[in-house]
């Protein structure tokens, strides 16, 4: 079987408009179980929008999203969570007045995790939240809030995990540590899409990258080949000049 037939997620010609503006403009790609796919591109190229559509926050205006063999475009988020999709947010969104433990409990109780749900103690320990377990999420620093987003997602036992700039703002030691964690998750068969601006981090963990520009993929392959592609260089340099 070709990898595409194996894919757990297949996105074809996806379109998402905001008013007249095309945030996604015919985006196509796929991911297979156990793969870490990088989604890179300049600011505003549509990475977060792609994640929002795949996770059911927005309904697509065109094209198709197929998860696990069934069309999933426009399906409500909580249903997609039950089917096995979850995500983190670029700006973490914990339940601020609830404790860290309660944040995770909600996902354990309602996430519809199939099989044995992960234990809270283990999640807290693994993602360095044990010391703050009984504090309100509002007390956490931003790196801890990102880890809470991640543990909330993992509590639902996703088979497809979408990470939107999880690594941004972490120090080098933390980056190494979280890279190891993400790789370990993929090794269990989880498909993971990583949106990130830190190329070193992308290099370290991804098998393959999709380069996005203006809502469309302009490259697909390894990061090493991507950086030699004139169109990719142009987009990133163009992006930097614009700053």
């Amino acid at each position, binding site marked *: 079987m070709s990898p595409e037939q194996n894919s757990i997620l297949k996105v074809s010609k996806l379109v998402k408009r905001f008013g007249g503006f095309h945030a996604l403009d015919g985006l196509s790609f796929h991911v297979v179980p156990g793969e870490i796919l990088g989604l890179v591109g300049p600011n505003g190229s549509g990475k977060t929008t792609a994640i929002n559509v795949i*996770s059911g926050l927005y309904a697509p205006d065109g094209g198709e999203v197929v998860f696990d063999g069934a069309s999933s475009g426009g399906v*409500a988020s909580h249903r997609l969570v039950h089917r096995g999709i979850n*995500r983190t947010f670029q700006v973490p969104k914990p*339940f601020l*007045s*609830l404790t860290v433990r309660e944040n995770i*409990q*909600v996902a354990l109780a*309602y996430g519809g995790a199939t099989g044995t749900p992960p234990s809270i103690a283990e999640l807290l320990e693994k993602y360095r939240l044990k010391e703050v377990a009984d504090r309100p999420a509002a007390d956490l620093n931003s790196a801890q809030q990102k880890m809470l987003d991640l543990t909330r997602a993992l509590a639902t036992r996703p088979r497809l995990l979408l990470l939107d700039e999880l690594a941004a703002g972490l120090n080098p030691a933390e980056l190494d540590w979280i890279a190891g964690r993400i790789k370990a998750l993929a090794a269990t068969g989880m498909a993971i899409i990583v949106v990130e601006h830190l190329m070193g981090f992308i290099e370290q963990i991804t098998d393959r990258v999709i380069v996005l520009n203006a809502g469309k993929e302009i490259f697909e392959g390894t990061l090493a080949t991507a950086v030699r592609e004139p169109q990719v260089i142009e987009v990133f340099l163009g992006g930097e000049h614009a700053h």
Partner: protein
Amino acid sequence: MHSASKHLLFILAPLVVVFALLPGAYQNHLLLFNFVIFLILAQGVNIIYGFTGYLPFGYVGFFGAGAYGFAIMVMHLQTPAPLAVLVGGAVAVALGLLLTPLLRLSGAYFAIANLAASLAVLHFVANPALEGITKGPYGVSLTGTFNPTHAYYAAVVVMALTVGAVIYLKNSPFGLALQAVREDAVSASMAGVNIIKMRVIAWLASALVAGLAGGIYAWYVSVFYPDNVFSGEFSIFAIVFALFGGVATVTGPIVGVLILYGIYNLIGFTTPQYFQLIYGLLIMGLVLFLPAGLVSLATRRGWHVP
């Protein structure tokens, strides 16, 4: 001991025992009855505002609908009072269902739309064209069911059930999920929570509580006008009492009612001119310095408040 059992034993049980025995020791039964009614309404506000964040400025709409549901059953079908109270609750739930589209609004827009809805229901009920059914603006008189003693104990039962419901919310994944929806609806849906379903359930539960209270109120007073049972004071008092004590807790609204309604009755009747002043200052001070209610005096110190 499990914390839900603690809440039942140390909050609910004493509350019920005290209000069940007080009529034997204290003469002003109407005052006791009003306390129980406000305990129900403040907890009803707690369910919808404390756990989901919707501020029900027109909460009295459910109360009035319950009172009229009761009255219509008694007037036209000679229904026994307890059954008519249940119908009052059902009428409020039906009104709640009709108003579910309001849940699409948030913040002040929801509060204003809810207020408008309660006024619309008032004017519908008070319409002289409906005199044959509701007696329109002329009010109802239900002498056949008049029995304040039974009505009082029915109110205590509904109060017990309402406080029990809040204890459930405070101790269950369901209540946690409601609070998650209040905190961040997008994240809640990513935790697998069906946010629309949760909001509707909380909304209908708070409508039911107010409808039952309204039915019992009609039973107790037996003579009333639309303006009485749709009076905005019920909404305002219930909201202020709940906020004063602190919402999303079991004890906050109880403390709020006992203190504020207590003060209201101590100084409100004897020296109304000071009352307005003191009440106004108290509420301003609260909003400025204790926006999360009296219970936050304790939670700020890291103490757990049930």
